[in-house]
C-alpha cells in the first residue's frame, strides 16, 4: 500500500483519546482504536500527500517502522476506514 493514494473514508469520525483516537464508521458501524498519536496524524493527513510513503516521510516516521504502518493501514482498508482515492 506504500505507493497508493489513500484517504480517510468520508463516513468515518475520529474521536480524540488520551492515547490516540477512536474511529467510528457510520456505514458499517465498526469501531477501531488508533492506539498511537502518530497513526492518527497519518490517517488524517493521507489525502494531502501523493501516497502513503509520502505521508509517512512527511511525518518524520523512521523507515524501519514503515512496514508496521503499512500493516496498520492495510487493516484500516480492510475495515473500509481508509479507502483508495
Amino acid at each position, binding site marked *: 500500500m506504500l505507493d497508493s493514494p489513500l484517504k480517510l473514508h468520508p463516513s468515518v*469520525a475520529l*474521536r*480524540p*483519546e*488520551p*492515547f490516540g483516537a*477512536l474511529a*467510528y464508521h*457510520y456505514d458499517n*458501524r465498526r*469501531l477501531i*482504536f488508533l*492506539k498511537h498519536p502518530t497513526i492518527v496524524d497519518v490517517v488524517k493527513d493521507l489525502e494531502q500527500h501523493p501516497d502513503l510513503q509520502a505521508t509517512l516521510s512527511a511525518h518524520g516516521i523512521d523507515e524501519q517502522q514503515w512496514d508496521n504502518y503499512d500493516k496498520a493501514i492495510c487493516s484500516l482498508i480492510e475495515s473500509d476506514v481508509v479507502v483508495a482515492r
Partner: protein
Amino acid sequence: MTALTERMKDGLDAPICITWELTYSCNLSCVHCLSSSGRRDPKELTTEEAFRVVDELREMQVFYVNIGGGEPMIRRDFFDIVEYATSSGVGVKFSTNGTYIDAATAQRLAAMDYLDIQISLDGADAATNDAIRGEGSYDTAMTAMRHLKDAGFGEFKISVVITRHNIAQLDEFKAIADEFGAQLRITRLRPSGRAVDTWEELHPTLDQQRTLHQWLLGHGENVLTGDSFFHLNALGESLPGLNLCGAGRVVCLIDPIGDVYACPFVIHDEFLAGNVRNDGGFAAVWRTSNCFTELRGPQSAGACASCGSWDACQGGCMAAKFFTGLPLDGPDPECVGGDGEYALASAGAIPRPSGDHSKPIAVQLGRRSNA
C-alpha cells in the same frame, strides 16, 4: 488482557456506548426488570432536555446510544428524540417489548437510518416467556417481529435474558431469530431492579452455566452477548469480548430523570455519579465525578487474588456482587469455581435498588411471602 483493555480500565474521554432510559413507564411488569419500571416518574426529562442530552452526546462524539426504559415507545416524543439523535450522528439501538410496533410503525422504522431495534423475549414459547414477562407478551413480541420482517426492516435483534427456565431453549431461540432474519442476543441475568427479589430462583445453576459456556463457544460467531458472560471465562476457554466491567469506564446509564449511573444494572445511590441537569451537564459527570474516578482507579482482587482464574474472569460482575450483598473485591455470586455460592452463605444485607417504579400490583414471581 491486552494493552488496550488496560487503557480502557482507566476510562476514556467519553463513553463508547450509553444506555439511556427514556421513561420508567411500562405496560408490562416483568419480574426481572432491571429498572423496576412500571410508572412514569414526574421528574422525567422533557423533550427539550432530551434534545440537549443528544447535543452533548454529539459534541462528545458518542456514536451509539442504547435507548430503553421502561417501554421507550410509550413516550409521545419517542420518534422526535430518536430522529433528533440519528440526524445528529448519534446512532440508536432501542429495546422494546414490541407492543407499539404495528404494521405502519414498522414501516416508519424500516425507513430510518442508523437505527437498530431489539425486541425482548425471555422464552422460546409462550408459557416460558409469559411467566417472566406477563400474560400475552410472547404473542405481542412475535407479532412485532412479524411486522418488522414484513416491513423489510432487516436484521433487528432478539434480546434474551438467560434464566434457569429458558437456558434449555438456546437452539429454539436461534431458530426463531433465523426465521425472522434477526440476530440473537443473549445476556446474563443480573440481580438488579425487581430481579433483586427473583434472581435467586431465576439465575442458571452451575451446571447450566457450563452448558451455556460450551454452547457459546460453539455459536459465538453468530450470537451476540454484550460481553455479559465474561465470568464464564474462568471455565477455561475465553469468549470473545473485552472481558471487562465497563461500568463508568466505557459505558454508563442516563436514567429517565437524568441521573447518571455507572451501568444500567447498578441503579443505586452508591453508583450514582451525577445528573445531566446539573452544571456542566453529562460531560462533567463523565469526566469529573468522584464515582467514576474511583471506578477507573486500580481495583483490588480481594478474595479472588489467590484464584488462578482471576485473569480470565476479573472477579465477575460488580452489580451481581453488590445486589447479592457480596463484597465488590471478591468472587461473583455465580463464580464458576463455586466460591460465590460459598460467599453467599455469609453475605451481608442485600441493598435495595434506588427507585421502585413498579405498578402497585406487579407480577411477583418468586417473591418470598411472609404470610
